[in-house]
């Protein structure tokens, strides 16, 4: 019994998730570039492209309800299907956070923008985690999922350190309060993007092994 149509349907679902994942990673990456280079056009692009990501979410939701209603997936297929729904939510949220960062690009006052080395490190890490979580999903690589999620500790550490530094800087120089408080939000958003990557890694572990791991 091959159930060709069913297997194709599962493949389509997986492809939607990887495509959505690539787009989310791109949004996160572009939003940070727009912030650092003060590129308003790029920021606008991130905001506009969120619509496509939302469409992916709807497509995935539809695909999954059809699979459940018509194919009664079981065992590993069932873990795949329920995990995909969760992953799609995480990717959708991560993209929303990228949009929030792009909106901040538009609010920041140019003259005071000062590259902040820890913010850059956090954004690199967040991007990488999101990317690797999608690779782990695509290849059902439990080990990569666990390794990727483990990087969240470093993101959290950077978050607290940078937050503290930034607040100290702001209390020393009131002229940077405007930009500084926006940057505080960016820190928070990056930290949450990494959390979503972690959630995706947990879903991958569940898909691969059936174990409900708590990785962050």
């Amino acid at each position, binding site marked *: *019994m091959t*159930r060709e149509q069913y297997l194709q349907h599962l493949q389509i679902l997986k492809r939607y998730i990887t495509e959505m994942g690539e787009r989310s990673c791109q949004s996160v990456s572009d939003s940070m570039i727009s912030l650092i280079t003060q590129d308003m056009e790029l920021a606008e692009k991130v905001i506009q492209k969120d619509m496509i990501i939302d469409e992916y979410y709807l497509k995935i939701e539809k695909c999954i309800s*059809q699979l459940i*209603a*018509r194919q009664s997936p079981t065992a590993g297929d069932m873990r795949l299907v329920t995990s995909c729904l969760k992953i799609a939510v995480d990717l959708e949220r991560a993209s929303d956070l990228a949009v929030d960062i792009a909106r901040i690009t538009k609010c920041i006052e140019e003259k005071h923008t000062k590259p902040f080395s820890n913010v850059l490190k956090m954004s690199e890490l967040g991007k990488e985690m999101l990317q690797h979580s999608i690779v782990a999903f695509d290849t059902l690589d439990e080990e990569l999922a666990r390794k990727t999620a483990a990087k969240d500790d470093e993101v959290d550490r950077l978050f607290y350190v940078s937050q503290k530094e930034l607040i100290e800087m702001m209390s020393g120089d009131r002229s940077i309060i405007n930009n500084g408080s926006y940057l505080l939000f960016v820190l928070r958003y990056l930290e949450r993007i990494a959390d979503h990557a972690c959630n995706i890694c947990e879903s991958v572990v569940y898909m691969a092994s059936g174990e409900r791991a708590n990785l962050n």
Partner: protein
Amino acid sequence: MSDDFANGTEIAVKGLNLWYGKNHALHDISINIPKNSVTAFIGPSGCGKSTFLRCLNRMNDLIPGCRIEGDVNINGEDIYSKDVDVVDLRKRVGMVFQKPNPFPMSIHDNIAYGPRIHGIKKKEIDGIVEGALKAGALWGEVSDRMGISALDLSGGQQQRLCIARTLAVKPEVILFDEPCSSLDPISTGKIEDLILKLKKDYTIVIVTHNMQQAARISDYTAFFLLGDLIEFGKTGQIFENPREKATEDYITGRFG
């Protein structure tokens, strides 16, 4: 009823009523069945699925006391018109039953039977037999023993033989009445895969009690209840969000 099917309508039924003596078994059925798709008929036992299926190739003509009113058009032709050749109609609209019913003869002759009756030349027969068995996904299992009796095949193989026999006369429509109900899951899977392949070339209507089977293989689903057609729509819609409460109750197993 609107007709927005991708491949057009194959069978158009309008205002069909059927009586077995005084028993009014089908009430004013109107439905368009799309070409090159799989349409499933579901509904509780006795609701009229088989009766309606038999209306589509006039098998009910054979039942004494059966009276039919209404229109059935297949590819634009009124199949109840006086000048329709019923034998030719049943060749165009083939039927596969619940229990495999091979003829008590060799595999080869089972398939060759129809084409011979319809006057196909001897030298073409072997090619047709091979083609039909391949299309019926049975060739690989029987090609080296075409002479053995069809009754020596397994139930699942017999059912695929019956499908191949139907294909051998090149029908336009194939009606299946619970074709898998006497088969194990593996044979059922083979028949389902086969049906999905066949819809490229044929219009398929299948009666099934297996809701999951209807959900898996059909493009459209019709739900019957006590002789009424309650709901007809895309299978995805019927199984995700039926319009009628009776349909929902039936497919979720809350009936009665």
